[in-house]
């Protein structure tokens, strides 16, 4: 486990190094003065420019510039936003939790619904149930997410009037910003309408989370189905059959556990996909998250915000990726070390 941990941490460090290198070079690739892009101070006076070039070591060579940039990042200084003139790190701290909330809820929905359906499809392999599930899965990951979001709003918010169509919570409830994750904030607050606020917040998250969850959920169906089919062909299942276990016993005791491990392995990769969908969905549902902020920064040509947002978002995706790798390794001894049998 130690070598495995060291290897993963090594990978994480290399990746984050590459990501900072990319976001640093973005400052030079974006139109305009690199120094202005880096700091976000538009139209600086000559004096300010001098101070800035002192701060970012702009006249030194490339490596020292990059090193100073890294030091700024570790101090948490990501510059100020060109559009709102607020420091970017405080904006990100405000916005990132909402995105985490949405994407995690969607991930949970996708896994809880997708994986069991995939298992059902695998158990009924080459029967009508399998075909129906596969057809639905195919449709599910072919649907463009923005269109799905619009249709969902039209049906569930406008025509049926079941769920609200935009925002994170109704403006009537005043919830103090503590962690940024709405549900935890509500539970922490001492408002007397806590329970109503909680209900309101959950009715707001259902629609966007389901929209985000559809495509990853259908991919989980396929992954779970393939994993289960692979497991059902292995020797230990045949051995269990030979022992005289009934089919349900085989599935519940042996097959599900082993198939689940192989699905968990792919969660990290799916999460990256899910985050992209969440970005687009945030725009449509007016969700106050980092994806919507990033896309708005592109409209406003807020280059400082774009490079900082990119850095934070992709690091977040990668950290989740590494975390799922750890969970996978903790569950599956084979992944840690090839010594544990073959």
């Amino acid at each position, binding site marked *: 486990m130690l070598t495995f941990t060291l290897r993963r941490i090594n990978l994480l460090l290399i990746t984050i190094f590459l990501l900072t290198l990319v976001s640093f070079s973005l400052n030079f690739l974006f139109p305009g003065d690199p120094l202005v892009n880096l700091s976000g101070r538009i139209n600086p006076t000559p004096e300010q420019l001098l101070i800035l070039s002192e701060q970012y070591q702009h006249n030194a060579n490339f490596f020292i510039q990059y090193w100073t940039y890294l030091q700024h990042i570790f101090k948490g200084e990501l510059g100020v936003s060109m559009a709102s003139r607020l420091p970017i790190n405080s904006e990100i701290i405000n916005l990132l939790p909402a995105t985490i909330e949405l994407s995690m809820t969607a991930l949970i929905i996708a896994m809880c619904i997708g994986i069991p359906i995939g298992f059902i499809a695998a158990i009924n392999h080459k029967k009508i149930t399998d075909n129906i599930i596969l057809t639905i899965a195919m449709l599910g990951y072919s649907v463009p997410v*923005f*269109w799905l979001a619009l249709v969902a709003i*039209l049906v569930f918010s406008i025509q049926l009037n079941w769920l609200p169509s935009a925002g994170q919570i109704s403006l009537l409830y005043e919830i103090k910003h503590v962690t940024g994750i709405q549900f935890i904030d509500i539970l922490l607050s001492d408002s007397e309408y806590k329970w109503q606020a909680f209900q309101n917040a959950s009715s707001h998250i259902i629609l966007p989370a389901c929209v985000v969850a559809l495509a990853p959920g259908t991919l989980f169906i396929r992954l779970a189905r393939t994993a289960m089919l692979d497991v059902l062909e292995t020797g230990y299942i045949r051995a269990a059959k030979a022992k005289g276990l009934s089919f349900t016993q085989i599935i519940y005791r042996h097959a599900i556990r082993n198939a689940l491990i192989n699905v968990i392995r792919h969660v990290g990769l799916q999460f990256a996909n899910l985050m*992209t969908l969440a970005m687009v969905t945030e725009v449509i549902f007016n969700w106050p998250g980092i994806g919507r902020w990033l896309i708005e920064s*592109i409209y406003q040509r807020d280059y400082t915000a774009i490079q900082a947002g990119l850095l934070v978002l992709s690091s977040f995706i990668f950290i989740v990726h590494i975390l799922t790798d750890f969970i996978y390794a903790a569950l599956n001894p084979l992944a840690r070390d090839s010594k544990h049998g073959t």
Partner: protein
Amino acid sequence: MARNRIYQEEEFPSPLVQSWHYFRQNKVVMFGFGSFVFLFLLAIFSPVLTPYSSFENNLDHLLVPPAWDVNGDVSFLLGTDNLGRDMLSRLMHGASLTFGLSFVVVIISLLIGVFIGSISALTTGIKSIFLNHFLDVILSIPSLLLAIIIVAILGPGLGNTLWAIVLVLIPQFVHITKNAVKDEFSKDYVLASRLDGANSFRILSYSIFPNIIEKIIRQATLAQSAAILDIAALGFLGLGAPIPLPEWGAMLSNGLDLFYIAPWTVYLPGLAILFSVVATNLVGEGMRHALKQSKEN
């Protein structure tokens, strides 16, 4: 299946022909393939086939619902939008923008990616390790996010979107080609031709490419369904094709304000995107199935 042998000579179908043989057997896949060909032809011939121009305004016929509606007009089969432009013509033109351009994008990135991939399969050592790590990082960033970043650098517009998607798709082709070529290189028949004195380039072009082409085609279909969704998503976000162009994603965002009065301006382009992505995915599924079957036999 036993075959009647009329002729003495033994025929050995090439891997591609073999896959086609398995591919043809599935009816659903063939339906997808038919739709794919239909969209392809539509993309080429849409300027000749469309009843109206995609920019022509019919100010007497604003927001006419589709012909099956009570208020519909049969001369505008799928209705008109807020400027009285015929939806059917716009959707047909959109086929050449969204579907046709995604096809072109995939071909370009396929050529570049396969080229880089086969060269990198032949290199070893520190260069190859660096490339592997770099590819891992790039592949872990979702394609749409990467495309959005590249568009942010290049600036919005349809041309820049296409370049962005080309750049995004290249690493996937590099990855798949590299692995496939490496796998093939360790096989005996490659060793045989190497012993015959063939150089690496000859082995690549005569022995390896005919054997890995189905894998590349399968990756191309996956890439195309991603490309269609990305072009449409960027168009919808206002970063890709400008609103007057009949690109499906841009059409969708154009209809957004009138969504509740004229829902067909939103659901028709969405269905068009869905249809083309499903057709492409079906072809990819069929390819995967054919590959699996020919491997098993």
